C-alpha cells in the first residue's frame, strides 16, 4: 500500500500529497507521470510527478479537484493509503538548452516547477512564468522564485497586481529581444496553444508542450491518450507526455479532452452528495 505522509491544502481546489512509493521515487524524473487509484472501484488517475525524495522514498503529487475521483482523493488524510500507485511513466523532459523559459498555467505550474528546478539545478538560465486565475490560487511562489533567475507571476483578474495571462509577459520578453533556446509550456491545452503561437511568431527555436490527455493504462495499451503530432498519431503515455509543440494539433486535443465531460459532472455531483449524506449521518 502507498501511504500518504504529508498533505498540504493550497486552496479549496488544489491539494498536495506526499506519498510513500520507494520504487517510484527511485526512478522518477521531471516531466514523468504516475497513475493512482484511490480504492478498489476507483478510476486510474494520471498525475504528473510534482517532486520526489529518493532518500525518503516519497513522491509528491499536486492535483486539482475536478471530478468524483479527485474529490475522493482529496478526502484522504495523512496515514491513509492509496490502493494503487504506479510509475514513473512516460519519457522525462529533455533538459537541453542553455537559456530556457518555463511557462505554467494553473495546476500546470505544479508540473512546471520540478522542470524549472531541474534546469536551474543544472546551472541553466531559467525564466519562469506562472499564471493563475486570482491571487488566492497562487501556489509554489517561493519554490518558483528559488528555481529561476527571473520569475513572473500573472493573474487573470490582476488581483496580485499583474493582470493578464502567461502569454502577455512571454510576448513582452520576446518582443523586447529576449532569446530563449527553448520554451516549455504546461497547462490547459488552450494556454499551450497560445504560448506555441507566440513562440512561433518570434521564431523561438524549440517549443515543448506537456500534454495531459485522458488515459487509462499509461503504458501504451489503450490508445485513449492519442493525439496528432506532425500529422502522425502519437500516444502521450509512451511517446510523450512532452511533444514538439509546433507540430501538435491542439484543437483536436481540446476536443478529445471533452469526451466524458457530462459523465464527470454527474459523477462529481453524486460524489459530493454522497459525502454530504455521510456527514449528516
Amino acid at each position, binding site marked *: 500500500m502507498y501511504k500518504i505522509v504529508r498533505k498540504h491544502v493550497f486552496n479549496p481546489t488544489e491539494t498536495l500529497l506526499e506519498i510513500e512509493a520507494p*520504487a*517510484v521515487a527511485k*526512478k522518477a524524473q521531471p516531466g514523468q507521470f504516475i497513475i493512482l*487509484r484511490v480504492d478498489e*472501484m*476507483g*478510476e*486510474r488517475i494520471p498525475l504528473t510527478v510534482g517532486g520526489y525524495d529518493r532518500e525518503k522514498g516519497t513522491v509528491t503529487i499536486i492535483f486539482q479537484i475536478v471530478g*468524483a*475521483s479527485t474529490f*475522493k482523493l482529496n478526502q484522504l488524510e495523512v496515514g491513509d493509503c492509496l*490502493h*494503487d*500507485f*504506479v*510509475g*514513473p*511513466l512516460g519519457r522525462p523532459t529533455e533538459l537541453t538548452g542553455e537559456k530556457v523559459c518555463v511557462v505554467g498555467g494553473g495546476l500546470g505550474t505544479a508540473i512546471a516547477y520540478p522542470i524549472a528546478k531541474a534546469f536551474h539545478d543544472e546551472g541553466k538560465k531559467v525564466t519562469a512564468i506562472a499564471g493563475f486565475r486570482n491571487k488566492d490560487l497562487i501556489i509554489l511562489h517561493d519554490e518558483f522564485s528559488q528555481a529561476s533567475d527571473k520569475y513572473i507571476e500573472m493573474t487573470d483578474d490582476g488581483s496580485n497586481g499583474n493582470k493578464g495571462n502567461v502569454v502577455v509577459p512571454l510576448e513582452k520578453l520576446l518582443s523586447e529581444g529576449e532569446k530563449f533556446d527553448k520554451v516549455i509550456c504546461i497547462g490547459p491545452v488552450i494556454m499551450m496553444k497560445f504560448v506555441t503561437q507566440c513562440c512561433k511568431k518570434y521564431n523561438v527555436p524549440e517549443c515543448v508542450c506537456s500534454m495531459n490527455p485522458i488515459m*487509462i*493504462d499509461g*503504458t*501504451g*495499451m*489503450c*490508445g*485513449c491518450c*492519442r*493525439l*496528432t503530432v506532425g500529422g502522425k*498519431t502519437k500516444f502521450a503515455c*509512451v511517446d510523450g507526455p512532452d511533444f514538439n509543440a509546433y507540430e501538435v494539433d491542439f484543437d*483536436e486535443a481540446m*476536443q*478529445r479532452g*471533452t*469526451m*466524458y465531460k457530462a*459523465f*464527470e459532472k454527474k*459523477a462529481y455531483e453524486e460524489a459530493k452528495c454522497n459525502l454530504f449524506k455521510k456527514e449528516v449521518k
Partner: protein
Amino acid sequence: MWKEYKPNMALKKNPMPSQDPKVRAHNFKEVAEGYTAEMAIDEAKRCLGCPNKPCVAHCPVNIDIPNFIHEVALGNFEKAYEIISESSSLPAVCGRVCPQETQCEMKCTRGIRPGSEPVAIGRLERFVADWHNANFKGEIVRPKSNGHKVAIIGSGPSGLTCAGDLAKKGYDVTVFEALHLAGGVLVYGIPEFRLPKSIVQKEVDGLKQLGVKVETNMVIGRVITIDELLKEYHFEAIFIGSGAGLPRFLGIPGENLKGVYSANEYLTRTNLMKAYREDSDTPIEHAKNVAVVGGGNVAMDAARCALRLGAEHVYIVYRRSLEELPARKEEVEHAMEEGVDFQLLNNPVELFGDPETGLVSKMKVEKMELGEPDASGRRRPVGTGEYREIEVDCVIDAIGTTPNPLIKHTTEGLETNPHGCIVTKGESGLTSREHVYAGGDAVTGAATVILAMGAGKHAAKAIDEELMGK
C-alpha cells in the same frame, strides 16, 4: 475402445446449456452455463478412446485427452482433473476460450463422418475444471524451495503458466504485472460473460498458495529494468510474457474523433475497470450505433460488450467474407444470435464527425470483393469503388495489436523482429540475452491463450534446465 461401458454413438455433441440470447445480450453474466455431471458423463462416453489419439497431437500442450475423458465417463472427476493438470495450468480458462474446432476437436475421429460432431472436448475440460474448483477440498502443498530466484514479466497466460511450473519445482518466483490486477489479457481483454474474472482470480490465488509472489503496479522497463532485475535484484533467470498490447489503428481520416476507440481501450474500460457497473468510477460511452472494425475474437468481444452496454445497433465491419472471419466459430454464432449485424466485405475508408460536438457520426465504407489469395492464404479483398455511409456514434478498431516496445527500448541487446516481436531460439524461448526467456504474444504477435500457455511451459522447462545445470 474402453471396456467399462458402451460408447454413446449419438452423432451430435450434448448441447451446451446457455443463457437465452435475448436475455444475455443485456447482461454480463456468463453465456455458457456449463454441463451438469450427467451431461458430462454422457458426452464423455462419445469418446472412442482411439489408440492413435489424434486429439492429443493437435493440443498445443498435449493434454492426454482420451484418458481424462475416460475418467469423466467413469465419474472420477478429480482424477480427470489431475490428468489435465499434468499438461495444462489453466484448464478452467482454456476450456472456455480455446479454439477447439481448429485444435483437438478438429481431428477427433467422431467428427470425421459428415453430419457427425466431434466429442465436446472443450466443454468437458471446462466441466472438469469447474468441478474441481467447486469441490476440491485438499490443500495445496507448497513445494520445498530450491533457493533459485526467477522473475516473470507479465501475468497473462504465458507468465502464469511459467510461474506455476517453476513454483511447483521449488523456484522462488516473482511475477511483475504493470496493471493493478493480475491476469493480463484474461482480465483486461476477455469479457466477463465469456470468462468470469473469479476464475482468473482463482488461478492467481492458486499460484500464490504455491509461493509465487505477485507484484502489481510494476511496469518493467520503467520502474525496474531487465538488467536491474538480473544484477541488483539477483534474479537468475527472467521470462518475458508481456503480450501484444499495443493497439493498431486503421490510419483513416477521422480516427481521432471522439467516440472512436481501440478495442483495447473499450475492453479495458469495460472489463478491467468494470465501467459497466454502477459502482465503477470509470466512464464509458453508452452509444446507440456501434461499428466494430475487424473479424477476430477481440472484435466479437467488443461487439458483444457494446450490446450489453445498451447499444441498439452493433455492426461488425469486416473487409473479407464470413469464411475468412478469424474469430472462433462459437463466438461468431453467439454474436449473431445476440443480434450483432455483420457487414461483411465492407472496408472503412473515412470517419465523419459532428462539427459541433466532435463526436463520430458516420462511417464511410467501400464495398469489397474477394480476389486472389494473399500471403495469409486467404482471398485478398479488392475495392469495388462503390461507397456508402453507415450512421454511427461509436467506432471500435479491433484490427490487431503488436508487442509493447517498452521492454525492447529499455533492454540493450534484446533482439526483436521488424514487427517488434522478441526473437527467441527454438522451443526454449531463450532470447538474444543470456538468462532472459520470452514467450506468448510478445514473441508470436497476437495469438491464442493456449499457445501462450504452451510457450510458458516450454520456457519453464528450459529455465529449469539452465539453472539446474542440466
